[in-house]
């Protein structure tokens, strides 16, 4: 991987501008997810938020992660949300029973979560600097490793360093799957 990034132009300024624009859209959409009075609209605003996360991955040149975000979250998770909503009840127009009396608790938990996450992120990555440097597409090195380099790095860490957490997660998902079937089936 090292060497690929050499002699290339930085795009830190456009990256920051793009991030700012996306962040505004994502925050606005996230607020709409919880304030909208229509369940289907909430799910569709969630599409904007999750799509924005995917675009952020793209900005960080984590192409594979971004595509996974689009495929899994937009193409499957939100679709299953919509599917579930439409199979049970999906009234057009405004529903008034979407709110409940736990607003204050919600605010407290939200602030708490923000504090914990910010602390953890600043503590772990506060000293790191992001380098927004474009691949020099003409270089032979970039043709050989650059275009797939990031994807290969991810697969190397999943199936090398993080193999056991990865497998444990998949077993956990399997357990959840079997649990759902056991709960859903009456016989």
């Amino acid at each position: 991987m090292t060497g690929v990034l050499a002699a290339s132009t930085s795009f830190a300024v456009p990256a920051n501008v793009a991030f700012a624009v996306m962040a505004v859209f994502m925050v606005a959409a996230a607020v709409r997810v919880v304030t909208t009075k229509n369940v289907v609209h909430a799910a569709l605003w969630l599409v904007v938020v999750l799509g924005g996360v995917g675009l952020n991955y793209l900005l960080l040149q984590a192409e594979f992660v971004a595509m996974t975000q689009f495929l899994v979250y937009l193409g499957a998770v939100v679709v299953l949300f919509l599917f579930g909503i439409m199979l049970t009840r999906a009234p057009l127009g405004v529903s008034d029973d979407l709110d409940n009396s736990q607003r204050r608790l919600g605010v407290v938990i939200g602030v708490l979560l923000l504090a914990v996450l910010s602390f953890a992120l600043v503590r772990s990555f506060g000293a790191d600097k992001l380098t927004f440097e474009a691949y020099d597409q003409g270089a032979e090195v970039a043709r050989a490793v650059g275009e797939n380099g990031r994807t290969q790095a991810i697969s190397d860490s999943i199936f090398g360093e993080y193999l056991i957490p990865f497998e444990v997660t998949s077993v956990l998902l399997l357990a959840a799957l079997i649990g759902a079937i056991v709960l859903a089936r009456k016989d």
Partner: protein
Amino acid sequence: MTRALLGVELAYWQSTLIRVLAGLVAVLLLTGGVVYLYLFKFVSFMQSRLGPMEAGPYGSLQLLAEVGKWLQKEDIHTEDSDRTIFGLAPAVVLSSTFLMFVVIPAGPDLVIANLGTGIYYVLAVSSLSVLGILMAGWASANKYALLGGLRAAGQLIAYELPLVLAVLGVVIQAGSLNLQDIVAAQSGGSIFGWDGIGNPFILTQFVAFGIFMVAVQAELTQTPFDMPIAESELVAGYQVEYTGIRFLVYFISEFATAVGFAAVASTLFLGGWALPASWGLSDGVMHVVGPLMISTKAILLVGVVFWARFSLPRFREDQLQTLAWKFMIPIALANIVVTGVLKVVF
């Protein structure tokens, strides 16, 4: 292309603009050609009739007449419909279709963006059309539209899996997700040392090719997998309330997706734009021959899709789900295992 062609140096945005416009024209031309060739003429000959004959020689301008007709129609929506979502839905479906073409290469340098994750990107953006279909079904305020949308979502999710799993076999064999690398692996490959025709992956991945084409048929909701728009049960499914230009968008999107998936299938399994490397053709020649190669292969594969569409009767909903989950996914998984083992052995 940006560096050498005609000695003209283009800025990045200029070359991107040219690529996007050329890609758009190519996609629309191919889509129109496919509609005329198969939907108007091929099916007519299969049914012993002539098809459109009046507009232009042999009815070749029929499509323009139909587009003109659709553009003039009034934009109608039902009284209860959610107008924003109703209007956005065709746009979502169409962008999902057009984004697919961004990474499909048509020559050594003829690609809008040569992404490292090529084929994975295609699968990711093509899965977004489900969102548009669900939005359309719900926002139409029509029970048939909602039923059609739900059927479509169930079907597209079920067949997304065999599609992805079938592609994996090719990716393992080529050792790359990048479509240009997959093309190069086929044109530069050899069959037991003989490199006369390269090594098109259909020879080794014929199981994956079969699964891919059946899954594509289902993803396109073409008969025998057209339950989402089954006219005898649901009138026209999620499209039932759409008229005029919005219906036209669905129509273009359906056939452009057919062209797109056929182009992806020919890139993955039939060698794509390239001719075997052993024939020794230069990049300059391939800039011209490449687009012709990929277009021909894609049009032929769309022909297979439409041949099946006009020949087979519709499945039942439960038969469709059974086929995906109980047959195609296990076979695709077995194909991956066998490919992986053979890759290690050889």
